[in-house]
């Protein structure tokens, strides 16, 4: 896709639910940054067509109309200004976010969802926030991502506790190891991280935090605690609340 702007946010949204989520995320970013460039990448816009599920991810590199892109997962909401990220990220070719936070803004300590990362010494990356600039490094990274998705059966054999189907986080982590994690991540605690609302990351008793906790909009708070940056709400039905 031809470059139309220097910087912009790209939100992949394959499937109707994700389009709704992506629109909500886009609206929440525009609330803080009315002039932000945002592209919602739908199935029809994929340059190589819909390959099914997570496997489409590597296409974001070719699909982005920006020289510098921050890719965001659709099921998130922007709870505070984030444009300072550009200053933090612009010196690098690729940055995948590392680690996550709970709704108290504390680093997620639970490893319940990250067994495969720990058992295989993979970096604790989250593709939910991924920055790249048009560069050889970024091209190499997404070529690797494509290759790992396509040859998952081979990668699966060398991993402990592999998923039957590859997840984007694991694929990004393997690509990071091949390229050297220092080349595609920032030191832990420095770069942007998501608030992850999955059950075992937060002190909650059920899997649906939207029913258990009190939340408010404008400003976005969970159990009275103001949220910062991007909140990965994870419960897709919440998009219509």
């Amino acid at each position, binding site marked *: 896709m031809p470059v139309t702007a220097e910087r912009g946010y790209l939100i992949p949204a394959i499937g109707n639910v994700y389009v709704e989520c992506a629109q909500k995320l886009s609206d929440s970013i525009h609330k803080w940054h009315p002039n932000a460039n945002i592209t919602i990448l739908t199935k029809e816009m994929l340059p190589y067509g819909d390959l099914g599920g997570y496997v489409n991810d590597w296409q974001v590199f070719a699909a982005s109309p920006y020289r510098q892109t921050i890719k965001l997962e659709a099921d998130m909401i922007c709870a505070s200004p984030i444009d300072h990220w550009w200053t933090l990220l612009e010196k690098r070719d690729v940055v995948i976010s590392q680690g996550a936070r709970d709704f*108290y*803004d504390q680093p997620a300590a639970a490893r319940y969802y990250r067994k495969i990362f720990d058992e295989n010494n993979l970096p604790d990356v989250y593709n939910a926030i991924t920055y790249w600039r048009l560069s050889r490094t970024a091209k190499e990274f997404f070529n690797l991502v494509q290759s790992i998705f396509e040859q998952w059966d081979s990668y699966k054999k060398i991993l402990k506790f592999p998923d039957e189907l590859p997840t984007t986080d694991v694929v990004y982590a393997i690509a990071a190891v091949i390229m050297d994690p220092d080349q595609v991540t920032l030191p832990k605690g420095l770069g942007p991280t998501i608030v992850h609302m999955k059950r075992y990351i937060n*002190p909650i008793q059920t899997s649906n935090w939207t029913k258990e906790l*009190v939340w408010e909009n404008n400003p976005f708070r969970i*159990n009275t*605690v103001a949220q910062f940056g991007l909140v990965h709400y994870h419960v897709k039905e919440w998009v219509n609340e």
Partner: protein
Amino acid sequence: MTTGALIFARNNEEIDYVAMARWSASNIKRHLGIPTHIVTDDAETTNTRYFSDIGNVIWHNLNRMDAYQLSPWDRTLVLDADYVVASNQLQSVLEVDQDFLAHRWAYDVTGNNNFEGLNYFGNNCMPMWWATVMMFRKSNHARLIFESMRMIKDNWTHYRNLYKNTTATYRNDHALSIALGIVNGHTLDHAGIPWKLASLTPEHKLTQTSQDCYRVNFINTENKPRWVELQQDFHAMGKQQLGEIVASNS
């Protein structure tokens, strides 16, 4: 700038909190060189002049959130009666350029308990700030914190439900934690006393070995008898044992 300490003390059938506060006031004078006002609703005690060398005694049915109104000083240290001042470490808290400070973390001096359950409250583990030691400066910021604590106490059922508190009993620590959130824009980034609150749980044996030196005998997690010596301030959660120490000093 005037500085002093407030201790809230209410006797019950088992614990003579006023005696504890009086003893603490003498420690405060010795280590920090500031006067103490003891706030109590014990009419008999408050009508005596026993505390005149330490400070006034105010008699009223008052609560911790009244500290802002009650304090005659520009800068005030509010202490629990069972907080033992055994050093001048709080001096630095009185000199810092902040309107309000309290402890975020407490720890067990024996290392037996991890205090996870005590440093958070409610089913969703809201971070807790301890009201055991509070320093405030007369300011809008501090006034709002105490007014918020009052509001929270007056509407405790609502706040208890909101934070899914498992116990119905109102606690100053919980009200303070909620109030700090309200006043600081619903964030959890509050300036705190830059060390943890040393705490001693009631199951351990506390004795005084010399004027500012205490010994804690305890059974460790491997069921072996151990002891530690404290030459620092600490929060004696075992009031009975502290009461005995106070009685032996009077």
